[in-house]
């Protein structure tokens, strides 16, 4: 690796590390244990981990196929679809939440249908949190996978076809395994985005302790009264996220062949 790369790389790293380090220095570390073990904090942490995990799974289940379709289908409209997938990326999360509310709320088209046919109301439930998180996080997975898919080409998929593998078999046994490093990064991105989700969640799902108040919402709430404890909570969020990602990332995602 060329050594001059280390200069911008170190700058980039500094941009990321220094602010967080500053935060750590400012945090009242003595009070941390106390702040972090309040029921509100614990509830929020549990809820955040649960919903972020669920929405990461949803992102994978919907996003991997979507990425493959966008990268491989030779349809006319695909270029347009590719742009459409970017929508939630740029929509301010609060507006995204509003959009979900308009769709799945009581007066929304789908929401009305759901309430009438199944008696289900989505907003203000934990499910709403998962939906909001999936909405904002999935495009990250899709876009990063699509890039990897196009870079990789389809030589091995062709080989699989000449060996008689049906497209679904090829997808399962060739496309996905070869894509694992990229799927890994994509999952990390979605998980992180879901874990940090705030605007869409509060707009679409509200903020009720134990039900819809995830850690970022708790951080915001706390920030109104006590910046220190908000910062402490944020650090908890960060620590948990980094731990989860560092530990849960399977070896295969590392791309070690």
């Amino acid at each position, binding site marked *: 690796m060329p050594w001059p790369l280390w200069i911008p790389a170190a700058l980039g790293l500094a941009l990321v590390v220094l602010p967080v380090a500053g935060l750590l220095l400012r945090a009242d570390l003595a009070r941390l244990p106390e702040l972090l073990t309040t029921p509100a904090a614990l509830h929020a942490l549990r809820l955040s981990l649960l919903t972020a995990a669920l929405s990461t799974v949803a992102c994978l289940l919907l996003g991997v196929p979507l990425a493959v379709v966008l990268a491989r289908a030779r349809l006319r409209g695909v270029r347009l679809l590719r742009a459409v997938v970017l929508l939630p990326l740029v929509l301010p999360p609060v507006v995204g939440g509003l959009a979900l509310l308009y769709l799945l709320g009581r007066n929304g088209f789908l929401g009305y249908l759901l309430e009438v046919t199944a008696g289900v109301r989505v907003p203000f439930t934990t499910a709403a949190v998962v939906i909001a998180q999936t909405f904002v996080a999935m495009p990250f997975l899709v876009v990063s996978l699509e890039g990897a898919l196009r870079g990789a080409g389809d030589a091995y998929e062709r080989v699989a076809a000449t060996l008689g593998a049906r497209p679904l078999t090829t997808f399962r046994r060739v496309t996905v395994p070869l894509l694992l490093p990229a799927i890994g990064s994509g999952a990390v991105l979605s998980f992180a985005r879901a874990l940090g989700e705030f605007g869409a969640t509060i*707009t679409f799902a509200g903020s009720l302790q134990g039900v819809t108040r995830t850690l970022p919402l708790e951080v915001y709430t706390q920030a109104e009264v006590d910046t220190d404890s908000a910062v402490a909570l944020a650090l908890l969020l960060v620590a948990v996220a980094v731990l989860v990602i560092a530990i849960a990332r399977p070896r295969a995602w590392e791309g070690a062949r």
Partner: protein
Amino acid sequence: AGHGDRTVTVFAAASLTESFGEIVDEFEAEHPRTRVRLNLAGSSRLAQQIVAGAPADVFASASEATMRTVTEAGRVEGEPRVFATNELAIAVAPGNPHGITSFADLAGAGLTVVVCAPQVPCGAATERVERASGVTLRPASEEQDVKAVLTKVQAGEADAGVVYGTDVRAAGDQVSTVRFPEAGRAVNHYPIAVLTGTGQPEPARWFTEFVLGPAVRKQLNGAGFGAP
């Protein structure tokens, strides 16, 4: 800003967005060589920024508590002065389909009610009203700010929300207002102060005085704010 112009930077609470937009226009008409830059955000965020050394000349806050953090950080020149007050009101769908007439009605079964979280000023006020009136609400959500509460009511997701009177007015005909007497038990005060360490003490003082002046008082009343 042309040559010789002076710029005064005003940090104002988000709930003042509409009113201050007009106030600034009037002020600038009166002081042609002075320009006002508005920085609009939640009061506590603004306080944080000021404490961290933000180049603000005036702080107009939506709560005395946040103003206090700035005072304690030594950035307030003189004493903050209250220029407006605000009271809680109940926001309901247009035409009040559920026939809500009092604060106690909100505790009724089958109603989806949203309020502000107790950590933010409107939530704290709601809690005080609850205590004063002996009514216990079981909200579907404790929102981050008034805006979030209003959104839920506007979208029809909540049957009622407890917010400030000024906010309901700003939402126009998309919601109706239900006033209730207990609101007087938790009046919210809006203080304004000139900040230290600014390059523009003079125009900052002009602006503060302007806001505290009678012309603005009328304007604020029109937007639903009460007198101090």
